[in-house]
């Protein structure tokens, strides 16, 4: 292959399965994305395995216990003066997290439009919704520990493994949300202060990388909501 022909084939990178072969061969960088983004994806992949281990161990203890599992629909019901509404707090928390995912997606978009002001506002809104989520989780934990008497080693409603699974899974997820709120606040501050204009030549891909992390936190909640609260 002549030099010109090689240069020609480099400019038109094939898509699909042929693209996979092109990307992983030829002794060059495999992923055609900024390195920070590739690394965030690899980190999220490892995090996927951690959360999966928690959810699978929860599945195992729930299958293997001979004592009835506490009904999450009743345990997490909340009454506003009248009849208790099943799972209402968890439903509100889910909607808060989805709203924050939407504002984050928009923040990434406005970041690439180089609209600094809107990007910062949207990222702060996302962080604020995340903080709201953690506060509601703190309320949920307090209610469960103080009023329902749930402990990691037992509870009055049924299978002893309920508490251990609950505190481990939601605790680890809540920790991720907390870390995300701090992470987003730092990136928002840097966008606002013009850090990326000065240091990165106006490249806002960091906002997208932070967005990946935030959407992942929402993604994990989708699985926790389905398997722990609804099942």
């Amino acid at each position: 292959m002549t030099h010109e022909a090689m240069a020609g084939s480099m400019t038109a990178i094939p898509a699909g399965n042929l693209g996979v072969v092109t990307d992983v061969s030829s002794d060059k960088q495999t992923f055609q994305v900024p390195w920070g983004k590739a690394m965030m994806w690899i980190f999220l992949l490892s995090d996927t395995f951690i959360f999966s281990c928690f959810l699978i161990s929860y599945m195992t203890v729930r299958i293997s216990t001979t004592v009835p599992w506490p009904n999450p629909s009743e345990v997490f019901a909340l009454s506003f003066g009248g009849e208790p509404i099943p799972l209402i707090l968890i439903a509100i928390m889910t909607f808060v997290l989805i709203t924050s995912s939407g504002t984050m997606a928009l923040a990434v978009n406005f970041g690439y439009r180089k609209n600094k002001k809107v990007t910062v506002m949207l990222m702060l809104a996302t962080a604020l919704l995340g903080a709201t989520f953690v506060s509601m989780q703190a309320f949920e934990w307090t209610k469960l520990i103080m009023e329902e008497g749930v402990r990691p080693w037992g509870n009055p409603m049924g299978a002893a493994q309920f508490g251990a699974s609950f505190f481990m899974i939601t605790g680890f997820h809540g920790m991720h949300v907390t870390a995300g709120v701090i992470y987003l606040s730092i990136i928002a501050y840097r966008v606002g202060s013009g850090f990326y204009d000065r240091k990165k030549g106006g490249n806002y891909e960091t906002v997208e990388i932070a967005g990946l992390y935030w959407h992942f936190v929402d993604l994990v909640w989708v699985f926790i909501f389905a398997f722990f609260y609804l099942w």
Partner: protein
Amino acid sequence: MAQSEGHQQHPLGIYFWVWGLLFVLSGFSYGVDYFQLEGMLRWSLILLFMFLKAGFIVAVFMHMAWERLALIYAILVPPLCLTVFIGLMAIEGDYTFLARLAAFGPAAEIIAPHQ
């Protein structure tokens, strides 16, 4: 649409559409519990809404739909190992459950009477 530099710029409309869809799907999942659906119907609906929500978040919000296939494979194929792990632990859990019934359940006295 897809830029090889990993620069993701898409029309705003698609984000609002997916945002709305996620709300509707979450409403549906909550409905499964609110209306106390039971058995296979409950479990299949929970899984259906869960996978739809997860799919939309990964594909659109995380821009996976516009990434190159090499990255998609690198991220989405490894978690498939988990299906084997889930299968193994489900079998293990069932075994433990049966062993507990046999050893501590009401039938324990019949299977292995105390001396």
